[in-house]
């Protein structure tokens, strides 16, 4: 007989790249923590929020049953270990708190395909083929192995799943496990949830520096563009200005943070193309 399935949403991260608490980010009127707990709660017998000790008084987290970390500086491992220590007889469906595109089908399939005889059941990432450790089921027998892993000074749950030979599944929805770490990714996820179209014309501000400033003959401009990504925007601007630098030697920032060339642009964004740097 397989162990009862309990659920854990990890909310103890520091959200340092986001600059604000990822658990409290709202999508369509609900915080990510509430959304994750609702999705998870429907699939497990009982669900808890994993918190750091200093988060126990937080009102958002206070709505839910909590399990506090007992060890520090172990990242998500601390939450998983604390849950296993609290209820050692259970298997744990562990979810990160930064997966706004996670859908019901993905959790349903994970639970249906659970392999109680394995150490864990997880999805294979649609991006790199490696296990996704923070939407995964950890069987009771994983506890001793996790303890040993942590005692050896290691704390990467992905490498743990690789070495432990977790049962791996293909994702039914390849974007369901895209995590959100920066304000730009938050914007893109909000757009995806709202079904907004990348091709719509949008108001953008472009700022130019150094060689690009001289070649554009301006520091800044506001423009209307249907470009969906910085890559498309730069191609569009090259039609207008005699830019000599190819996008292969540039980097890009959206809203004052480094971004990918394929980041979806949204109306109101400020884009900066960064020529090869020469500080110091």
């Amino acid at each position, binding site marked *: 007989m397989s162990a009862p399935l309990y659920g854990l949403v990890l909310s103890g991260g520091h959200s340092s790249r986001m600059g604000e608490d990822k658990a409290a980010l709202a999508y369509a009127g609900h915080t990510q923590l509430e959304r994750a707990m609702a999705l998870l709660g429907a699939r497990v017998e009982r669900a808890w929020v994993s918190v750091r000790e200093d988060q126990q008084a937080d009102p958002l987290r206070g709505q839910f049953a909590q399990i506090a970390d007992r060890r520090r500086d172990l990242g998500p491992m601390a939450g998983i270990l604390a849950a296993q220590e609290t209820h050692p007889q259970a298997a744990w469906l562990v979810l990160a708190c930064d997966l706004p595109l996670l859908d019901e089908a993905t959790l349903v399939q994970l639970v249906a395909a659970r392999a109680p005889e394995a150490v864990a059941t997880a999805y294979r990432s649609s991006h790199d083929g490696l296990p996704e450790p923070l939407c995964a089921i950890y069987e009771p027998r994983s506890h001793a192995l996790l303890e040993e892993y942590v005692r050896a000074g290691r704390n990467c749950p992905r490498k743990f799943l690789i070495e432990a030979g977790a049962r791996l599944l293909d994702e039914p929805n390849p974007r369901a496990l895209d995590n959100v770490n920066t304000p730009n990714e938050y914007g893109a996820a909000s757009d995806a949830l709202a079904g907004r179209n990348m091709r719509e014309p949008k108001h953008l501000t472009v*700022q130019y*520096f*150094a*060689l690009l*400033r001289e070649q554009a003959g301006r520091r800044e401009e506001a423009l209307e563009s249907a470009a969906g990504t910085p890559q498309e925007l730069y191609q569009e601007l090259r039609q207008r200005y005699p830019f*000599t*630098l190819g996008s292969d*030697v540039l*980097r890009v*920032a959206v809203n*004052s*943070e*480094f971004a990918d060339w394929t980041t979806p642009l949204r109306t109101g964004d400020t884009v*900066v193309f*960064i*020529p*090869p*740097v*020469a*500080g*110091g």
Partner: protein
Amino acid sequence: MGGAGTFRFSHAAIEVEALRRALADPRCGGFASFEGWVRDSNEGAQVRRLEYEAFEPLALREGERIIREAIERFGVSHAACEHRLGDLAVGEIAVWVGASAPHRHEAFLAARYIIDEVKQRLPIWKKEHYVNGDSGWVNCERCATPASDAAHAHPHR
């Protein structure tokens, strides 16, 4: 114990003594600093003056990150970096880095780390004005010419 640190830009001459004093701490027995100076030549051309420009919001944020990383990685008590912007003459200080720690080893490592990362990661650009009246953006124009690009290790991804 978490150390303290800052990254700043300056449009006027860098005040080394004030920066150094800010890192003083009775618990620290070691202090290491690095100064980058404006040199009178680069890749064979005679340089008359330099112009530095930065995308400040991103550079400040990334600069603060580098300082934090140095403090966490090497366990120094304090670290700071100040970078000049605007017009600089030959001999002026373009960048100052300092780190203080209980012992010298960590201070040296942290200072070295900070200057290396600042050069690689911060959106700061340098235009050289040459004695012959020419000028050029470093890494964009001079280094992109076919004559020099084969051997040039581009600091940029």
